[in-house]
């Protein structure tokens, strides 16, 4: 009797799951995920022929790479580009791969460069982003596979490295949170409410209007009121800089899944006749780098000895980001470094 009841409840649960999944499948097919970043991804997809170079990364790209400066320097060197800054604040792998895939979807125009900020796969969602459209939209099956791979991979590429039980447990808790967002994404959570809101009150949604920046190239300068680097934060930065300067510059290669993610991005770029270029932005931290044997160009700006102007406090907005002046310098150096890499010369 008890067995029969259990079978009945299992059947009912399966029917519930089937109904849920069927509805999810219909919704996923009919409705696209929420446009994030003011619809910039959709813009790039629709205007594929207008851009041959894409910058992808976090706020260290979003607020620091000026396509207009980059294109001007590239044109001067005889390799004109038409670039677009597709970065989003807080974006780390594997989210960036999702953005790249969406942006290149159906693209027929050839891509020249896919310039990606080099970061390892991040597991876990920042608390301030949890349960927001920002965290939900990129959770799909390939991203979940990458996260699972990261959760179960040793943190080092050392062949003797083993899994740390405590770390794996923490990762699995984070993975459960990702799984929840994945399910939400499958239901296109909030999309119905948003579409309704767009239809009924379009003017109220003005703040989410397409954000291409003042030059129409995706670069968003920081509002002037948010510029400024002073006080204790500046002192702490200068202290950290003083400590970092005498240190030899080092690289870290992270874990196997993060390296595999880089290879997937390379395949994506090559699939559209483009070339993947990885960048370590100017930041006082040991940068994550691709394994040399992958042969991916890697432009490393994280060495304060080599790029003192990028670490000058006058050119920075905080310890992690450049200000508008620093961004212009960085964009120029980025173009020069890319040109040098293409010519097989050492970076400037």
């Amino acid at each position, binding site marked *: 009797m008890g067995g029969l009841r259990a079978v009945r409840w299992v059947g*009912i649960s399966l029917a519930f799951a089937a109904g849920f999944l069927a509805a999810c499948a219909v919704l996923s097919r009919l409705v696209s995920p929420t446009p994030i970043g003011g619809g910039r991804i959709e813009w790039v997809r629709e205007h594929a022929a207008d851009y041959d170079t894409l910058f992808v990364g976090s706020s260290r790209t979003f607020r620091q790479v000026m396509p207009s400066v980059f294109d001007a320097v590239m044109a001067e060197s005889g390799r004109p580009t038409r670039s677009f800054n597709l970065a989003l604040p807080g974006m780390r792998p594997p989210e960036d791969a999702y953005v790249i895939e969406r942006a290149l979807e159906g693209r027929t125009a050839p891509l020249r460069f896919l310039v990606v900020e080099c970061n390892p796969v991040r597991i876990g969602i920042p608390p301030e982003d949890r349960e927001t459209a920002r965290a939900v939209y990129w959770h799909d099956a390939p991203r979940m596979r990458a996260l699972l791979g990261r959760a179960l991979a040793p943190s080092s590429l050392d062949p003797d490295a083993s899994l740390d039980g405590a770390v794996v447990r923490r990762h699995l808790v984070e993975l459960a949170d990702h799984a929840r967002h994945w399910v939400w994404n499958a239901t296109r959570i909030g999309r119905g409410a948003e579409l309704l809101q767009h*239809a009924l*009150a379009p003017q109220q949604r003005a703040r989410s209007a397409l954000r291409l920046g003042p030059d129409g190239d995706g670069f968003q300068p920081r509002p002037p009121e948010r510029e400024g680097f002073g006080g204790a934060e500046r002192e702490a930065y200068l202290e950290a800089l003083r400590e970092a300067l005498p240190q030899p510059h080092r690289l870290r290669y992270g874990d196997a899944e993060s390296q595999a993610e880089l290879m997937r991005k390379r395949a994506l770029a090559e699939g559209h006749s483009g070339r993947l270029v990885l960048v370590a932005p100017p930041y006082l931290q040991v940068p994550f780098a691709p394994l040399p044997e992958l042969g991916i160009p890697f432009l490393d700006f994280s060495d304060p000895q080599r790029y003192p102007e990028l670490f000058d406090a006058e050119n920075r907005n905080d310890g992690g980001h450049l200000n508008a002046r620093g961004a212009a310098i960085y964009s120029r150096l980025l173009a020069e470094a890319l040109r040098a890499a293409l010519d097989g010369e050492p970076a400037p």
Partner: protein
Amino acid sequence: MTELFAASGELARPILFVELRFLWIFAGIFGVHWALRSQRARKLWLLVASHSFYACFFIGNPLEFFPKLLAGAFGELPVGWWFPALLGLSTLLDYQVGLGIEGARSPRGRRAWLLLSLAANLGVLGFFKYYGFFEENVRALIEFLNLTPSWEPLRIFLPYGISFYTFQSLSYSIEVYRGQLPAERSFLNLAVFIAFFPQLIAGPIVRAMSFLPQTRRAHRLADVDVRGCATLFAVGFVKKACVADGLAFFVDAYFSAPAQYDAWSAWAAMLCYAAQIYCDFSGYSDMAIAVARLLGYELCPNFDFPYFSASVSEFWRRWHMSLSSWLRDYLYIPLGGNRGSRLFTWRNLMLTMLLGGLWHGAAWTFVAWGGMHGLALIAHREWARLASPSLRGALRWLAVPLTFTWVLLAWVPFRAGDVYVAADSGRPLRLVADGFYREHAERPRFPRSALERAPRSGDWHDPGQPGAVRVRRVSGGFGTAATVWRALLVPGGAGERRLAQPGLGALLALLAAVHWINQRRGLARWWRALPDWAYAGLLGAAAAAALFLKPVAYRAFIYFQF
């Protein structure tokens, strides 16, 4: 001592019935509850679960409860860590009061025990809920007299649910005092009654007479109407997460700058707010009733299609029924009810409604809201007395729209007292788009310390509005209310901006039609006839559709702040 009352630091996020984590927590409670064999063990489990659930409102993740408390013993305790103990103390007091009343030899002794319960319960409620109101008004008066107050304001955090559980435990003492109920001998039964988690935070305010007998009865899982409970919970979820939270966007947009919008927008916003607050609160009540039923307990209904009422007195028999009947039985009738002169009855009606308004929050806008309802009750009473039956019959068609319009106008001060402020500076903040569909790049960037401003009575942190505190203004809000009333009632007395397309009107009409059909029981039974597998499949599809239609960000239930 000051530190004990004056909360600081980041508050834990309230657990909402519409969140997935609640479903996990409830699945655990449900599973253990029905796995236990003895009734006593089940009640003990419910008590532990209810207190832990309540503690999670202050401490956060249930899994972090004991580690945090342990860590707190050696360092800083989480905000409000002792509020669950307050709930326990209230239970202990009323247990003793019940026994004391029954054991007292003289009416005077019985009265003394009752007064102790009233003084202690209302004293605690008054301190936490009304100290800020009192202090701010005294301060305003002193400043009005061109003097300077010599004390620093004490910021007090309002424990969740205190208005609800205080009224609930008071109902026990009063019922025992009146001889309507024997004193409860089992502390466990009384503790389960007061702390029962489905209704602990925002009601319904259950009467001891209806709940305590249920704690003595044997419960069987086979008696639980699982399908009915699942349907009721799903309906509550859709009301809260899809309708109320969806309409909140329009209401917040309008109230962020009411002077800029036209009259159409004012009506649309107020209709949206009427639907929002009804769906928010009745959705919560539906879910609370469903969850309680799944555990074998029956809670009283809280709503009965109140917007179809033909008079304000009928409205109060159908809106927040557990509170209105509480106020009627324990305030209006003890005040003398209608057993006296006309003026005496008017006074009682007005006093009951003013205090009912004040129960909702320590702000003059709530008092005004209560006052408007008091006026309408008096007017209706006089109309019923003076108008001839034929006149009343002839104008009956006007009753429902007129009542609804008055209720709508009364919602204006109720809502106008609320304002979102940047938590770090206290300046008004426009968070319209962010609350609905925030993105990292769009979100206002306030320092993390933003949430560390000491909350005070009436403030509440809305999970949908990070970096902001929703502040209940003690004496403000009337300017906003006047602007909205003017836009609603005075031709040309409004701005130019339009809140939404006419489609919003069609949406509201659709919601009203569904509500009307539901009232006629048109949607009540069809799902009963489905086979189990079809019902489960449909429920699964409905769950996916509800997630599609709900905004991503959660919003706290409006009544959590009361």
